[in-house]
C-alpha cells in the first residue's frame, strides 16, 4: 500500500466500497495527469448526477445547478495536476462543487427562482405520497408539485451550512465523517447542524410531518 492509498484510507473512514472507489478514481486521475484527457470523461459520467443533485438541492434551480455542475467539472479538470490524492477524488470534486454553489448563493442572496426537476416516483416515494394523500391522477400531481414547492421553500429558509449538511446527509446519503471532511469541520458540528436543521424543517413543514 503506497502513501497515497494510505492517505485515502485514512481520510475515507466511511466504507470499504468508498475506499475501493477512491482507488479506482485515483488511477483515472493519474491517467488524466499523464495527458489522457479523454479519461476525464469517465469521472464526469460517474459523478455528474451526484454533483448535480447536490448543487440542485442547494440552489433549487435546475439551470443554475447545471451551470454550477459544469463549472465544478471544468475547475476540477483545470486543477487536476494539483490533485495529489491526499483525499479521494470524490471528496475533492464535492468540495469544488460546494464552494462554487456557496459562492453563487452568496452572490445571489436576494434573487431566488425555483425551477424543479420532476419527481420520479419509485416504490418508496410513491409510498410516502400515498401516506400523505389519497388523491389520484391530476389532483395527485398537483399535490406533489405543491409539496415539492413547500419542501424547497423550507430548505431555502435554512442557512447555507445547515442546508449543505441536510443535502449531503439526507439526500446524497453521505456519512457524517465524509460531510465533516468535505465541509472542513468536525463530526460534532455536522451532527449538531443536522439536528438543528431538521428541527427547523419540521417547524416549516408541520402540516406534513408528524
Amino acid at each position: 500500500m503506497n502513501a497515497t492509498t494510505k492517505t485515502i484510507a485514512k481520510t475515507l473512514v466511511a466504507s470499504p466500497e468508498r475506499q475501493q472507489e477512491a482507488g479506482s478514481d485515483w488511477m483515472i486521475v493519474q491517467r488524466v495527469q499523464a495527458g489522457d484527457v479523454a479519461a476525464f470523461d469517465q469521472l464526469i459520467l460517474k459523478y455528474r448526477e451526484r454533483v448535480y443533485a447536490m448543487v440542485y438541492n442547494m440552489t433549487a434551480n435546475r439551470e443554475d445547478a447545471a451551470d454550477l455542475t459544469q463549472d465544478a467539472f471544468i475547475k476540477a479538470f483545470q486543477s487536476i495536476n494539483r490533485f495529489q490524492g491526499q483525499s479521494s477524488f470524490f471528496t475533492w470534486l464535492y468540495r469544488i462543487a460546494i464552494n462554487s454553489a456557496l459562492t453563487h448563493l452568496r452572490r445571489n442572496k436576494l434573487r431566488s427562482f425555483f425551477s424543479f426537476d420532476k419527481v420520479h416516483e419509485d416504490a418508496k416515494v410513491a409510498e410516502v405520497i400515498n401516506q400523505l394523500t389519497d388523491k389520484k391522477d391530476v389532483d395527485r400531481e398537483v399535490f406533489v408539485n405543491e409539496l415539492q414547492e413547500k419542501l424547497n421553500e423550507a430548505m431555502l429558509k435554512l442557512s447555507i451550512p445547515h442546508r449543505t449538511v441536510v443535502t449531503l446527509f439526507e439526500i446524497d446519503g453521505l456519512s457524517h465523517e465524509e460531510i465533516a471532511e468535505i465541509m472542513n469541520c468536525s463530526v460534532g458540528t455536522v451532527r449538531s447542524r443536522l439536528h438543528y436543521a431538521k428541527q427547523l424543517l419540521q417547524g416549516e413543514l408541520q402540516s406534513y410531518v408528524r
Partner: protein
Amino acid sequence: MTTLPEHSEPNKVTIEQLLRLKRAERPSPEFWTRFEQDLRAKQLAAIIEKRPWWISLRLPQAGRMLACFQVPVGAAAVLALSFVVVREYRPAASVPGDDTSVEVAATVPMAPVHEQVARGVAVTTAKSAPLVVSSRVMSEADAAAPAASMSTGELMAMIPWAAPRSDSQSEAETSPVIGELTQVQFASAVNPGADHDFGGRVELDPVGVSAAVLVSDEGNAPVRVSPVSPREVRRNRILSTLVVADNSSEAEPTRMAQVREVIASSLDEDRLYDSVRRIGMGGDRLTLKF
C-alpha cells in the same frame, strides 16, 4: 373494503421520508444530453484559454514548503525592522545634556558638502554647559585651536547670540526666523563652492530637543535658522551627496530637479510610517499588506 372519509386529515410522515422526495427529483435524459454538449464546449474553451501566469507559480505549494521557515524568517524580519526603526529615530530621541553637541556633530556635517561649508564652524551648547567641540565640524587649524583654548565665557562673549539670555530675549531672537536650514543646506549642496562659506555655527536649542544652525554673513547681522528636524537633516544629507555627484558631471538642471523631487518625495516620513503599518505580526506569522 374500507375507504377513507372524504375530509379526513391525511397521515403524516417523518422528515426523513419527506426528504426522500427531494432525492427523487431527477432531470430527464434530454437534460443530460444538453448538459454534456455544454460541458464539452466549456471544456474545450478551458483547454484553449490561456491561464494567468500566477497560477503556474503554485504559490500555495511554495507557501507550504516555506512553512517550516516561518518562525526564523519572521524573527529576522522583526529584528531588521526594529533595527531600522531605532536607527531612524535615534537623532530625534536625543536628550538635552552633555551628549547633545555630539549628536549635532554626528548629524549635521555628515555630507562632504557640509564639511566644506563648515570651515570655522563651532559647535556649542546654548546653555551654560561646558563647550564641547567636535573635531569633525571644526576645520583643522583656524577654528579648533582657539576654540579649544578659550573658556566658555570668552567664547560666549564673542558670540552674541550664544550668550545666556532671558526668556523674553530669547523669544525676541527666535521669533524672527530668517531662513530654514533646509534652504541653506540645499543652497550649499547645489553649489558647494566657496560662496557658501557661511562661517556658520551649529548651536543646540536651549530646550535641547532640536538643533539649530546659526549663520552669519560677514558684516551683516547674524542669521538665525529655525530648528531642523532629523527628517530634514536626513533628506538634505542624501540630496547633497546626489547633487555633488551631479555637479561633477555637469548634468542639466532639469534632470537634477527631477531627481531631487523624486528623492524628496521618497523620503517622506509618512510613507515610511505607512510602509511600517503594512507589516503585521500575529502569532508566529508575519503578514505583509499590499
